[in-house]
C-alpha cells in the first residue's frame, strides 16, 4: 500500500480529530450535571464546601468546554475538506440532524456558558443556577443529536434512494433507529463514569498531598458513590448494546469475539492474536461455549462467524483488542469503585488507605481510555461502510492529495499533542491550587450588581 494513500490518511486524520474531540464532550456532558448537583447542594445547605467544589470544577469545565468547542468546529469542516461524498450521498439525513444539533444545543451551551462562568455576581442566584442547568442540558442535547446521526450510520432505516441520493421517508424511524437508544445510554453512562473517576482521581491526588479540605473530601466521596452506583448499570447496558449489535451488525460482533466460524458452543476468547490472512487465531486462550452463553444465553447457541462475511467485515485485531480493553477497564472500575464505596461508607474518607488513594490516582483517566476503546470498536466495526449498506468509506473520500493530507495531519497531531499535555498539566495545577485557583485578580466594583449570594467562604477548616 502506498504510504501516502489519501484514503488511509484521511481516515487517520478523521480518527485523530474525532478522538481528540470526544475526550472533552465526554467530560463536559456529565461534569455539567455534576456542577448542577454541587450548585443545588450549595443552594440547599448553604455549605461553602459545595461552592468550593463548584468553583474548582467549573474551571475544569470551562477549559474542557473550550477544547471541545474548538475541536468540534474542526469536525464540521472535515466533512467538506476530506469527505465530500458523505454529504452528497446522505446529506438529506445527516444535514437536518447536524443542523438541529447546532440550532438546539450548540448555541444554548455557548451563550449560557458565559453567564455560568462569569455571571455569578451579575445575575440573581436562581438565574445562575438556571444557566448551569441549561448548559448541562445543552451538552446532553448535543450528545443526543450526534449519537442519533452516528447510530443511523450504523443501522440506517427510514430512507429511500432516489437517483443515487438518500432521501428521508420517516423521521421518527431515523431518529429512533434501532441502535440509538443503546448507544446513547451507553455513551451518557460512559461520560458519567469518566467524570466520576476524574473527580475521584484528582480529589485523591489532592487528598494524598495535604488533605485538601472539606470540599475535596466531599467530591471524593460523591464521585466514588456515583461510580459504584453507575458501573453495574453500565455493564448491563453495555451487554444490551452488544446484543443489539449482534442483531443488526453481526459481523461487528464476530470481529469483536474474533470468531471465524458460525457455530454452536462458540468459546469466549480471553486472549488471542487474530491473523486475518490465515483467518485464524494464534495463542488462543478461551472459555468453552462462553460466547454462546453471553450472546445467546445458552451453551448450544449459534454465534455468527466472520467467514460468513468474507471481504465485507471490519478488521479483526483492532476490534478484538479494543473491546477487551474497554471491558477490562469496566471490570477494574467495578472492583475499585465498590471497594472504595465500602471503605468510605464504613470508615470515612480520611481513613482510606493510602495505597487505595494511589490506585484512584492511577485510574484518573481510565474513563477516557475505556470510552475511546469503545468508540474504536463501534466505528472501526462499521467498516468497510461509512453508512452501513449505503455508502462505502472509500467512495466518500475527497480529491485532496496524499501529501496535502499528510501535512495537515502532522499539523493537527502536533497541536493536539501540545494541547493535551497542557490540558492535563493545568488540571493538576487547578487541583493543587484548589478553590484558590487562578483568576484571583482584582475585581472592579460593578455598577448595579444584582443580588447574588454573598461571597461564599469556606466555613470548614481547610
Amino acid at each position, binding site marked *: 500500500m502506498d504510504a501516502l494513500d489519501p484514503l488511509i490518511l484521511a481516515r487517520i486524520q478523521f480518527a485523530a480529530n474525532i478522538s481528540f474531540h470526544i475526550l472533552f464532550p465526554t467530560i463536559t456532558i456529565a461534569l455539567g450535571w455534576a456542577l448542577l448537583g454541587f450548585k443545588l447542594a450549595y443552594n440547599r445547605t448553604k455549605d461553602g464546601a459545595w461552592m468550593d467544589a463548584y468553583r474548582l470544577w467549573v474551571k475544569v469545565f470551562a477549559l474542557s468546554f473550550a477544547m471541545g468547542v474548538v475541536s468540534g468546529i474542526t469536525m464540521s469542516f472535515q*466533512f467538506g475538506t476530506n469527505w465530500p461524498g458523505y454529504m452528497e450521498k446522505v*446529506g438529506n439525513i445527516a444535514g437536518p440532524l447536524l443542523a438541529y444539533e447546532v440550532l438546539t444545543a450548540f*448555541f444554548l451551551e455557548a451563550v449560557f456558558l458565559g453567564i455560568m462562568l462569569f455571571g455569578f455576581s451579575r445575575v440573581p442566584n436562581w438565574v445562575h443556577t438556571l444557566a448551569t442547568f441549561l448548559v448541562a442540558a445543552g451538552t446532553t442535547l448535543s450528545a443526543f443529536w450526534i449519537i442519533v446521526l452516528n447510530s443511523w450510520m450504523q443501522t440506517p432505516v427510514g430512507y429511500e434512494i432516489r437517483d443515487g441520493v438518500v432521501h*428521508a421517508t420517516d423521521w421518527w424511524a431515523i431518529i429512533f433507529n434501532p441502535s440509538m437508544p443503546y448507544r446513547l445510554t451507553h455513551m451518557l453512562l460512559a461520560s458519567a463514569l469518566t467524570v466520576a473517576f476524574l473527580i475521584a482521581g484528582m480529589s485523591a491526588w489532592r487528598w494524598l498531598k495535604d488533605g485538601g479540605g472539606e470540599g475535596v473530601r466531599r467530591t471524593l466521596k460523591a464521585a466514588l458513590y456515583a461510580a459504584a452506583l453507575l458501573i453495574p448499570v453500565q455493564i448491563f447496558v453495555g451487554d444490551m448494546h452488544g446484543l443489539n449489535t449482534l442483531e443488526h451488525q453481526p459481523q461487528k460482533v464476530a470481529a469483536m469475539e474474533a470468531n471465524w466460524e458460525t457455530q454452536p458452543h462458540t468459546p469466549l476468547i480471553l486472549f488471542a492474536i487474530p491473523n486475518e490472512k490465515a483467518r485464524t487465531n494464534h495463542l488462543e486462550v478461551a472459555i468453552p461455549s462462553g460466547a454462546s452463553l453471553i450472546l445467546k444465553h445458552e451453551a448450544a447457541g449459534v454465534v455468527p462467524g466472520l467467514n460468513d462475511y468474507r471481504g465485507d467485515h471490519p478488521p479483526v485485531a483492532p476490534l478484538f483488542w479494543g473491546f477487551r480493553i474497554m471491558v477490562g477497564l469496566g471490570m477494574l472500575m467495578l472492583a475499585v469503585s465498590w471497594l472504595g464505596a465500602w471503605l468510605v461508607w464504613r470508615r470515612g474518607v480520611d481513613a482510606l488507605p493510602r495505597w487505595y488513594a494511589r490506585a484512584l490516582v492511577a485510574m484518573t483517566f481510565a474513563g477516557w481510555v475505556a470510552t475511546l476503546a469503545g468508540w474504536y470498536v463501534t466505528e472501526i466495526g462499521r467498516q468497510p461502510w461509512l453508512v452501513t449498506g449505503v455508502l462505502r468509506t472509500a467512495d466518500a473520500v475527497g480529491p485532496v492529495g496524499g501529501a496535502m493530507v499528510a501535512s495537515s495531519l502532522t499539523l493537527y497531531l502536533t497541536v493536539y499533542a501540545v494541547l493535551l499535555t497542557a490540558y492535563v498539566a493545568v488540571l493538576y495545577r487547578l487541583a493543587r491550587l484548589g478553590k484558590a*485557583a487562578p483568576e484571583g*485578580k482584582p475585581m472592579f466594583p460593578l455598577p448595579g450588581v444584582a443580588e447574588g449570594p454573598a461571597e461564599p467562604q469556606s466555613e470548614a477548616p481547610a
Partner: protein
Amino acid sequence: MTPFVDPWWLPVIFAGLMGLSILLYVILDGYDLGVGMLTRLEKDANRDLMVASIGPFWDANETWLVLGIGLLLVAFPVAHGLILTQLYLPVVLMLIALILRGVSFEFRAKAPPEHKQRWDNAFFGGSLLTALCQGYMLGAYVLGFDQSFAAVLFCLLAALGLVAGYIFVGACWLIYKVEGDLQKRAVRWAEISLWATALAMAIISIATPLLSERIFDRWFRLPEIIALLPIPIASATLFVGLAIFLRRPLREKDELSWVPLAVAGILFALGFVGIAYSFYPYLIADRLDIWQAAASPEALSIILIGALFVLPVILGYSVLAHWIFRGKATHLSYE
C-alpha cells in the same frame, strides 16, 4: 412530507440565512479577533482587560461560524464539498488558528504565570492567522478559486484587508467597552485601521466587477445602477463621517462610545450586501447556483421548521448575554 413553501424559495431562504450567519460571524467574531490582534500592543493589566472584554462573548460569537458553515453543509452539500476541498490549506490553517485562539483564553488564565506569555503569543498568533486565512479564503472565493499568480496576490491582499477590517471593528469594540487611557489608544487604533479597511473594501469592490463580466453587468446597467448607488455612497459617507467623529469621540459620560461599533457593523453589512448582490444566485461564481447545489426540498423544509423557531430564540439570548455583561469591561472572574 410535502414542503410547506414553494420549493423554488427554499434555497433562496437558506442562502439568506447562511448569509446572515456569516455576516453576524464576521462582525461578532471580527471584534474578538481584532481585540486578539490588538492585545499585542498592550501589556499586563490592560491586556487582561482587553481579553476580559470579549471573554463572555467569544464562544457564542464563534458559534455563528459553525451555523454558517453548517448551513452550507446541510443546505448546499455539493457546494460545501467543492468549496472546502478547494480551500483545503487555508481552512486547515484557520482551524488550527481558531483552536489556538480559543484554548488560549483558558490556558492564559489557568497555566502557571511563567507560561502566560506563551499563551498570550498563541492568542495573538491564533487571532492573526484566523483573520489572514479568512481574508485569503474570501479572496479565493471571489475569484472562483483561480490559481494564477495574480490571483494569489489578490488573495494575499484580501487577507491583509480582512486583518485591517477586524482590527477596525475590534478597536471600535474597545472604545465601547473600556475607559481611560486604553480607550484613548483604542480611538487612535480605530482611526488608523479605518482607512486601511476603507482601502481594502474599495479595492475588492473595484476588482470584483472587473474580473467577471456577469458581475460587471449586474452593477453597471440601467436602471440597476441607480438603485445600487446608495451602497457605495452610504459606505463612503459612513467612513468619512466616522473619521470625523473619531477626532472627538469621547463625549460627556462616555455616552456615544457605542457609535463607532455600530457604524463598523453597518459598514461590514454594506460590504457584505455588495458581495452577495454580485454573486446571487451563484454559490460558486458562474458555475454552481443555489438551486443546483441545494439539498432535497424535504430535507430543507425540516431544517427550516427548526430554524424558524430557534433562530429568534438564539438572537434573543445573544442579546440577553450582551445585556447582562453590558457596560464597561471589568476584570473577569468566576464570581
